[in-house]
């Protein structure tokens, strides 16, 4: 459609030709595209920025009318604020400026100073330095610590002090920190894995015992035999438990041996136990390569670690794992059902008004709000089916529900129902694209309908099915509203697949990336500290879903190419 651009038009002519509206339309496309790209850039910058070890500033801060104090922390954000706003906030400012710069400083040390973020006015910062000796400690609780290392202690006795060179002090600390980390991982393993397994088996025994009580047909001798077995097993488990308990006591004394003396920004010296420290590093002393290395390590940790401090620190591995498992189970359920329904609609059902209505209905189900599926899942799967299953199969656990409560299976089923239309529509479209000649050729050679379907039609439709499945997975991975009702929790104690028999725990609640974003961003007590992590999680989710979608698009294009050659 060539636009005549040969000559310059008068304004009237220009308007009459619809040029302004064409430009407005072009601007609409442009704006939408810019919005998408801008959003992705925003997520990338904020998400990836989170892991970079920022330099730590030390400065004197003396706002008017207040005494001077030393400030140590990362500079997070800077903005200009009109002076009236600051005056009304209570600052006594003597200045001609209209705007003042304000900076957000992450100063950590929540246990020492109460808040780990503070706003300061840039104009009143002086003597800004970046001393190499400032260290950052990531801790298991109370967030980061920023300050100076002043001494290392072992069982209360100083083994290295400020008098020695900083190098010696720092190395003494790192050495001991390595030891503490090792001990910590041992403790973690015993507490989470070994003792967790024992607790799980004890709980199973309790249920077996309760099952015996409920079973009225059991002969008394058999009952006694079983009871004795249970007692013996329980005694064995208790003994095992005590062994671990003793080991734990030993480990705890060992890990609590060392501590350090650190000086916070207000000059206070605090003693920190090494058991509580996750990482220690001196960002100002790192060169670019150190930082890159550190960055990669942090990113790896983010992907593989468990969350700490009410999900605001640490990794998101359980959420990734939960999302993947849920999506996998959903795929296993939705694929056969979706394909069978599509094959029925296209190949077996008599085409007519009825199939047209069904097709419209299926199409529309894709537009039904996801929360409605969540409500259905909660009511039908959990409270109706789940409690029936509990009555029949798990009476010994009652009144504690087994399947009558939100869990992995129900979440997967609900999402399977939600994504069913996607798979049906995609598969049907694939079926309709198969040239008639191929089908008829197969039938003419004597194959039955089922054989034609199985050997000719379905293999050729498989890319379409894959497209449908990928789109379904992408939708399921990003869906949060229904999951909130049917099985997602903010913190699951164990993964739904673990070392305890029967290894797969369909009744368990799980964590999910999307819900993690919602929960940490909106339900967490310390949103400011958690925000970078939420951006990182959001970025991860977007990347996963974008990859899934792009592969679906690629597959679809490939499919179209393939049939183009067939049709000729």
């Amino acid at each position: 459609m060539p636009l005549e651009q040969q000559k310059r038009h008068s304004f009237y002519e220009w308007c009459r030709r619809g040029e302004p509206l064409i430009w407005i339309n072009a601007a609409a496309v442009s704006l939408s595209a810019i919005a998408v790209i801008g959003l992705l850039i925003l997520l990338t910058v904020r998400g990836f920025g989170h892991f970079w070890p920022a330099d730590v500033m030390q400065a004197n801060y003396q706002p008017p009318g207040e005494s001077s104090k030393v400030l140590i922390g990362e500079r997070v954000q800077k903005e200009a604020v009109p002076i009236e706003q600051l005056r009304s906030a209570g600052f006594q400012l003597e200045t001609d400026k209209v705007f003042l710069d304000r900076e957000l400083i992450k100063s950590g040390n929540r246990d020492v100073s109460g808040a780990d973020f503070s706003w300061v006015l840039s104009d009143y910062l002086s003597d800004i330095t970046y001393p190499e000796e400032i260290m950052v400690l990531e801790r298991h609780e109370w967030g980061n610590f920023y300050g100076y290392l002043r001494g290392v202690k072992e069982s209360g006795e100083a083994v290295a002090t400020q008098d020695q060179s900083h190098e010696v002090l720092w190395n003494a600390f790192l050495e001991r920190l390595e030891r503490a980390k090792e001990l910590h991982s041992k403790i973690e393993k015993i507490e989470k894995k070994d003792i967790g397994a024992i607790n799980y088996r004890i709980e199973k025994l309790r249920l077996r015992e309760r099952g015996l009580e409920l079973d009225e047909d059991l002969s008394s001798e058999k009952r006694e035999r079983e009871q004795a077995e249970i007692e013996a097993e329980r005694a064995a488990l208790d003994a095992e438990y005590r062994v671990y308990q003793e080991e734990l006591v030993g480990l705890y004394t060992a890990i609590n041996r060392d501590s350090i003396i650190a000086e916070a920004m207000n000059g206070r010296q605090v003693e920190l136990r090494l058991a509580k420290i996750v990482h220690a590093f001196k960002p100002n002393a790192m060169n670019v390569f150190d930082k890159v290395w550190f960055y990669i390590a942090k990113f790896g940790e983010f992907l593989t670690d468990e969350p700490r401090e009410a999900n605001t620190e640490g990794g998101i591995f359980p959420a990734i794992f939960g999302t993947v498992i849920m999506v996998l189970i959903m795929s296993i359920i939705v694929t056969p059902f979706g394909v069978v329904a599509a094959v029925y609609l296209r190949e077996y059902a008599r085409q007519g008004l009825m199939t047209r209505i069904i097709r419209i209905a299926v199409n529309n189900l894709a537009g039904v709000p996801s929360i409605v599926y969540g409500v259905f899942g909660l009511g039908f799967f959990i409270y109706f089916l789940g409690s029936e299953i509990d009555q029949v199969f798990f009476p010994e656990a009652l009144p504690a529900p087994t399947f009558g409560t939100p869990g992995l299976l129900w979440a997967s089923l609900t999402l399977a129902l939600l994504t069913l239309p996607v798979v049906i529509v995609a598969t049907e479209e694939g079926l309709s694209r198969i040239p008639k000649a191929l089908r008829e050729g197969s039938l003419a050679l004597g194959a039955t309908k089922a054989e034609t379907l199985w050997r000719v039609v379905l293999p050729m439709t498989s890319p379409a099915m894959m497209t449908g499945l990928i789109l379904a997975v992408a939708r399921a991975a990003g869906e949060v509203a229904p999951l909130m009702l049917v099985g997602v929790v903010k913190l699951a104690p164990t993964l739904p697949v673990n070392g305890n028999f029967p290894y797969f725990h369909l009744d368990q609640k799980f964590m999910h990336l999307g819900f993690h974003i919602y929960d940490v961003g909106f339900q967490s007590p310390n949103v400011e500290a958690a925000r970078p992590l939420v951006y990182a999680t959001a970025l991860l989710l977007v990347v996963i879903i974008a990859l899934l979608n792009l592969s679906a698009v690629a597959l679809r294009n490939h499919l179209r190419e393939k049939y183009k050659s067939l049709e000729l």
Partner: protein
Amino acid sequence: MSDSVFAGSNTRFAQWRKFKDKAAAVGITAGGSGVLFAILLIFFYLLYEIMPLFQSAHMEQTQRYARVGSPAPTLHMAVEEQAEVGFRLAADGTYYFFSVSDGSIVSEGRLNLPADAEITSFNIDSENSRIFAVGLADGRMLIARHHYKISYPNDERLITPVLQYPYADEPIRLADSSLQKITLRNSEEALVAIAYTANGGLEGRRWVKEEDFLTEEITLVEENLTLPDLDIKPHTILLGPTQDWLYVLSHKGQYRLVDVDEEEVVDAGVLFDNALLTDARFLLGGYSVLVSNSAGETAQWFNVKSDGAVHFEKIRSFRNADKGIVTVSPEHRRKGFVTVNDAGQLDIYYSTSQRHLASTKLPEPATKMAIAPRAETLLIETQGGELLVWEIENEHPEVSWSVLWEKVWYESYPEPDYIWQSSASTNDFEPKYSFAPLAFGTLKAAFYAMIIAAPLAVCGAIYTAYFMAPAMRRKVKPLIELMEALPTVILGFLAGLWLAPFVEKHLPAVFSIFLFMPIGVLLFAWLWNYIPMRFRKHVPDGWHPLLVAPVIILVVVVCVWMSAPVERVLFDGDMRAWFTAELGISFDQRNALVVGIAMGFAVIPTIFSIAEDAIFSVPKHLSYGSLALGATPWQTLVGVVMPTASPGIFSALMIGMGRAVGETMIVLMATGNTPVMDMNIFEGMRTLAANIAVEIGETEVDSSHYRVLFLAAFVLFMFTFVVNTLAEIVRQRLRNRYGNL
């Protein structure tokens, strides 16, 4: 046809193949219809969950036996929690605990009264506390309580009824003459009793409870109340639970509202004309008074504050027959009540929802009634001295069409209103299930989203489908598809934590962007017209968006950069404050504007791809014909392409609307979720979907609230289903039309 495949061959293998073919057909048909049935199941299950909301109550008589104990008239009857033990207090001071199932006496006794004492009046503090007072002819009163101890000997429940005297074992003096009417109110702080004596005046006492710090022992400190003189003879006096409102009602239907603290009558009037008061009781919570009369009407009245004064006002009335009401019995845990009339007709009503739930005829006219705390058992005493036990099934009386969609006058509100407030901490709370604010919030959010999304998406679709260079189109379409796939939780998170603070901080920028964006683009386009042809020809047709992109970015950057200075000069440095002060518009950080932008973003790709599809598939020979006849591309678009594609664009808008209505996470995260009805763009809202997400986790399964949330889901389901079906039908029609062209 498949039969012919097997003709002539009768080998085992052929049979096996035939069997497989049949099995596949049966299996796929069964599986396919099963899946389609499962989809139907959603609809029917939702319906199944909400049906009980609209069912009326069922009741049936299960027992009938002779009244227990003294032949003296009954003063009061009650049933305990489990509906196993009944309580009857007779006018001669004897009391009886009896088994509800067969009428046999469990225990009996007489109130601790002098042998010659004559009971002249009776009143109960509340059905839940079970503390009652009897007034005597000598001016004294006795306070007692019927109580039930539950123990589990041999793992079976045993209910032991006892009669207690919580304050004094002996009658206490309240006045010097006979207590004609009495009313009693007990609270944490004080006990108040007021009586109308034979002298024709009100006498009242207050006993303030003072707790000793160390022993935690409670001592009562007595004080006299001064009460105003009355000009009517009361039929009933009632003291509210806050102990400051005294309702005096005469037989003829006059009322006097007495402020006990101020010692004066603050309101006076008549309840009804041409009828006589027959019974008056507090509804649960003691805020509303139910008055019934000889004309068969029962009305709910409560205090309404208006213009600084308190008025006793009639809120709603209930009537099912013309026969006079004998007695009213309010439910203990809900705002429902049961009435029985002269003809022995029993009616169940619910106040808030104004529902008449059931009506039945008793075998004999009744005189007294007691409803069990769980409202499942009703004990009725007949004129013939018999007791009837009725079982009631009345699960969800709270919900009706008027509650959901009309203005309702709730207790302690100055006027009828639309309110959603489903739960509170107190037991006597009146649930407010109005869908109106939620539906309003849903439509408001969708409206602002569509205002932003519809022009952008439709204009974008027109350009992409009709003007854009194919090479660019191949890049733009996947980008928009990616936009569609973005999880809404991410959009919601960005809207709530990034966009909302940004908008709040750069409010002038937001307005100037809306204003200057089109101006900037048009200005650029006009100037482009003046650029010499030798530069212009380097930009091929259909690449306009790339040209305007820098302009758009520039406009945004300049607007944001200018925001603070503009705010300083025009709005004294704070546009929010200016809005509130100058225009009286309140400003929430998480508001409809933020939701509109975020949800608009979510809806754009949906509208865009369907609309683009509709425009692009307009047959090419139509537009070529038009162009060949000399029309400009724009004229072709407006005159030929758009009319053909308009149904498709319409259906795209419908589907986008459906998506905006059902979106949950964005609204949940980007608004304050307050159910207000205000079109103000700077205030938040609560939508149906977000409401479900917020509340369903905390409801009790199968409670009315739970089912109301299912109803909300059903409304959403039906709305989107109808909208989408319409859109789909329009699209199919369109497809057929293209086929014909």
